[in-house]
């Protein structure tokens, strides 16, 4: 289990680089130290590294640390501590694969909350404020195993100072109430939503022939994409709808990219470059050569999130993208790749 010294090192790293970039050397040293700890305490991860022929003694730079496929969180309890000692457990929504939900165990939510608060403040609250917060998501009480709901709860308690209502409930969405509240609002608002819930609210406004002109400086943070739940539209069209129905222009629309498997989040303003905190770096791997791609070349994204101290720091995603100087651009999944057909889902037969 990671020792207290490493935990405090991580917390001081987060505090120190909350609003600025970290030098390469500082990131590299801490990353390799965390890798050595995870290699020692996370049995599944160690086996994965061994199978790839990598150990702390062979790693000379953080990019060489083997990235664990995000899918592993669906199959294993990836922890450096006994899972029954977890302070919190977050589960993926299961939209990528039915009935298979990834699980991320947290021994301590300290780094997680410090990380998310610092990143949110850095990328979402740069200029205007204070805002009136509106949450178009489930509350942490309604979805205790959702990392997104937990994040919203932290934003509400730490950033919004306990103000702001949740408008999505197990019995349905309360768009009429949200519309009434927004109409009465005199301050700039900050709408925090999933892409699907915000789209649903926009559709509600459209169908009921209503629109809002929110105060100047108001903004939106949306996350998650459409996930096939509704007909997909481009970000450009989506933000144009936000401008039409809410009066919030694209330059005030922030897209968040997060994964249950990560402790940190990335943000992009008006569909631009995704930027993350100083303790999380990303690379793109060329599947043809298995090497890291240079800036601007498309590959499969892997994230190295130091705040994942108690699980696995290096996560290999299934998303395509490319690195930029200060972040990455997300391109989604490769067309036609990893498709399934009517051949059986083999997990089922193997456990039959």
């Amino acid at each position, binding site marked *: 289990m990671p020792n207290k010294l490493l935990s405090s090192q991580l917390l001081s790293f987060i505090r120190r680089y909350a609003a600025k970039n970290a030098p390469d050397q500082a990131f590299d040293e801490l990353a390799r130290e965390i890798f050595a700890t995870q290699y020692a305490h996370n049995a599944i991860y160690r086996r994965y590294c061994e199978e790839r022929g990598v150990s702390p003694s062979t790693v000379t730079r953080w990019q060489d640390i083997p990235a664990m496929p995000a899918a592993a969180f669906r199959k294993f309890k990836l922890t450096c501590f006994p899972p029954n000692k977890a302070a919190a457990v977050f589960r993926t929504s299961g939209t990528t694969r039915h009935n298979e939900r990834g699980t991320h165990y947290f021994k301590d939510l300290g780094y997680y909350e410090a990380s998310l608060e610092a990143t949110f403040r850095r990328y979402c609250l740069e200029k205007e404020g204070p805002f009136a917060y509106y949450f178009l998501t489930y509350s942490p009480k309604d979805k205790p195993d959702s990392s997104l709901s937990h994040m919203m709860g932290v934003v509400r308690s730490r950033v919004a100072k306990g103000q702001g209502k949740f408008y999505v409930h197990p019995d349905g969405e309360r768009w009429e109430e949200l519309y009434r509240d927004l109409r009465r609002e005199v301050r700039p608002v900050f709408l925090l939503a999933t892409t699907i819930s915000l789209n649903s609210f926009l559709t509600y406004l459209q169908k009921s022939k209503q629109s809002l002109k929110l105060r100047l400086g108001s903004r939106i943070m949306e996350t998650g994409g459409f996930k096939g739940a509704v007909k997909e539209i481009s970000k450009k069209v989506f933000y144009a709808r936000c401008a039409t129905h809410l009066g919030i222009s694209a330059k005030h629309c922030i897209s968040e990219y997060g994964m249950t498997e990560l402790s940190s989040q990335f943000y992009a303003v008006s569909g631009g470059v995704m930027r993350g905190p100083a303790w999380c770096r990303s690379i793109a791997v060329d599947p043809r050569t298995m090497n890291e791609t240079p800036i601007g070349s*498309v590959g499969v994204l892997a994230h190295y999130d130091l705040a994942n101290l108690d699980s696995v720091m290096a996560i290999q995603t299934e998303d395509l993208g490319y690195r930029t100087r200060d972040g990455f651009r997300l391109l989604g999944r*490769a067309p036609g790749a990893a498709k399934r057909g009517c051949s059986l889902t083999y997990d089922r037969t193997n456990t039959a």
Partner: protein
Amino acid sequence: MTAQTLLKNRQKNLKGLSTKRIAKLLGALSKRWLDKKYFYREKAIRLLQKGSGYPKAMAEEIVTGIFSALSCRNLERLLEFELGSSEALDGWFYDARTQCRHRATGPRLITHIFAGNVPQPAIHSLVFGLLLKSANILKVSAEDPGILDVYLDSLKAHNRALGSVCKIIVQKKADELRRFYAASDLVVCYGSDPTIESVRRDVPVMTRFVGYGHKVSFTVLLKESLKPFTDVRAAAIAKDLWMMNQRGCLSPRTIFVEGADQRSLRTILDKVGQELQCLDGESLRSKDFASAYERFQNDLGFRLQALTRKTSYRLEVANGRWKLLAFDSVKDFFIPEQSQTVCIYPYKDIKELLPIFHKRFFWMQAVALEGSALRRQEIANYFAEAGFNRITHAGRMQDPPLLWHHDGAWNLATWLRWTDLE
């Protein structure tokens, strides 16, 4: 277009057509689809490549396979085979065995639920629906590459009457789908067990429900087929694996080899691996990003799956997109979760395999069995009892005859209703 409109169109446009006439129209359309220059075929090939990630040669073979099977003659034979007469849906016919007259009536409206990205079941299902003179609501998955749309466009251009009774829907809320189920006489669902389970729950008790679940298939090589293990046999095995990128229910995921030693396993691995590489062609071997991405994902998936078990494989061949692994014995048996990964297991006696099959009885589909005619006959009994519904030769797995009992059941006969006149 609502269910009511489809039913009205059926009444107006379809009821007057004889089954033979419908089979003729559909057969003629299939013939057009076999023309490589046919506009809709070319479009479908492009979609299969782009949306499903199939190489061009594979996409061509898939489309040719589908429409060769759906010829007028084959459709008539299917009607005769399953209904006793190709005119059973048009009026009464006398059966000497029962000494009474019978007639069949197809469902007025069928809701088809398609899953995944294997085009064959969707097109077959629609053609069967039309053959039964039914109106068809076709619910495709969000991942669907759009082949059914292209087929429906071609059908509308070919014969407006047939096209007027079909409607494709993509995203629908559960409530809307339930309304379609309630308006249908039959709901046909293709998908995983959980999908079938959830759709079945929503279908009214009086509405007939037919579910086609995901299945698994194998290749079994009897010892006489190894002496010698010819290139032709390797090519046939490779074709079964290659077609559909190993995603189909008729795609063998595992090869069992009777009495194989390390040397013969190495020969099989090498020869089948080479054939797979040939089938993929030069472009897929090194350049294509999508296939490299798929291989990358498969490799990660395999590594993860390997972490869950202590098995070790002895021989490995990685040819292009394909990974072939030979194990020591069937004790290590598992089916790789990802495609383009083939596990090969030696065994001594067929009885070693039976527990593997019996454990998965409800998921068994087909087996490509290679060996002498006499031994094939003998071994086939074991497979029939183990739940397999098709035993064929290597190289033919992906071209099932239209008369094949898909999932071990009748194709048309389970969809319709009979009336007996005594």
